[in-house]
């Protein structure tokens, strides 16, 4: 049973990724949509970031005082200053571990 659900879910995921260049929809979006599409990466990734760091996993409620929220704020500063993916992840994780061991 789990295989059926897994494969169905996999196919659904693939179809969503493939949908807009599958060739089934022949008309490309008009250029006026570019203004919207420009914000797709920022909007989707910000949603994932906010839900992962602002929601406290212990209580399932918003909390910006957790170690992971503080580590994320440091990570934002590191990303703005260094523009380096490696530094952002490495320093963000290190800050989280230090904070956890301090308390």
């Amino acid at each position, binding site marked *: 049973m789990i295989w059926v659900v897994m494969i169905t879910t996999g196919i659904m*995921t693939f179809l969503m*990724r493939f949908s807009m260049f599958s060739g089934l929809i022949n008309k490309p979006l008009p250029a006026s949509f570019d203004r919207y599409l420009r914000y797709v990466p920022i909007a989707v990734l910000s949603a*994932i970031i906010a839900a992962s760091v*602002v929601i406290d996993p212990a209580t399932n409620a918003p909390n910006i005082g957790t170690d992971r929220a503080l580590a994320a704020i440091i990570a934002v500063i590191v990303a703005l200053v260094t523009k380096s993916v490696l530094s952002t992840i490495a320093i*963000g994780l290190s800050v989280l571990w230090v904070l956890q061991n301090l308390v």
Partner: protein
Amino acid sequence: MISVAQPLMRTAKKRKLVRNNPETPVILAGVFLCALPIDKLGRLGSYRAMTDPNPKQEFVHGIRDQLPLQLGVIPFGMVFGVLGMASGLTEWQTILMSSIIFGGASQVVFAQLWMAGAAPVIVGSSVTVLNLRHVLYSVTIAKYLCNLSLGWRIILGYLLTDEAFAVSIKRFEQNPVPRHAHYHLLGSGLTLWTFWQISTAVGVWLGTTLPAHLNLDVAIPLTFIAIVAPILRKMPQILAAAASGLVAVFGQSLPWNIWIIAAALAGIVTGAIVERGQDPS
């Protein structure tokens, strides 16, 4: 002292000569004509190198752009491997899910719901709604891929994950002649795929010896912070991120994981409206 002063004097004199000379336009035209071929050659050279790399260069470029993100992907893959086993899935179910679904957050949700004993329809639809954001990726990237062969489009569709999209859309947008840019997505997508499979397998192998208090799952939001923060330069982008974040946080109680697509749409519309307010053209 003299060696510095002399050429300066000479230049000054020349300038004066040029400025006072009635034939200035002719001289300027001559200088312009002489400079033109050099400038054109220079630009042609850099044009080739910058905007029309061959497929192999694009592929390597894609790999190189995707590699730094693996510092976040590897821990998350391991976390999923551990979680899959802890949820009661078998080794093969956990490992093959990384190929069949190939999406970090969706696999975590799948494993957790399955462990909780949710009905198959609930598991499938929850993951599907969570993955609706990929339709947004698909529509954004469609204009760059729609002329490729079906085989190419199927492979790139399979590889179109958060990370591959985030890295390659930049390349597509910056490339004025994206003739081979799909090789960039192939390179970045395959890199991510390979690291995701290996790290899942390592997580399965480590099992519960991987300490949970390391909170390695936070590596993924950190990866996305590294991508998003540097591009928040103007008001529309900042407000788009803020709107999306607020809806994501306060929409958690909405059913079926709708929060993610609701937040994404809120961010997109906010960004576009603010941009239109600033520049109505």
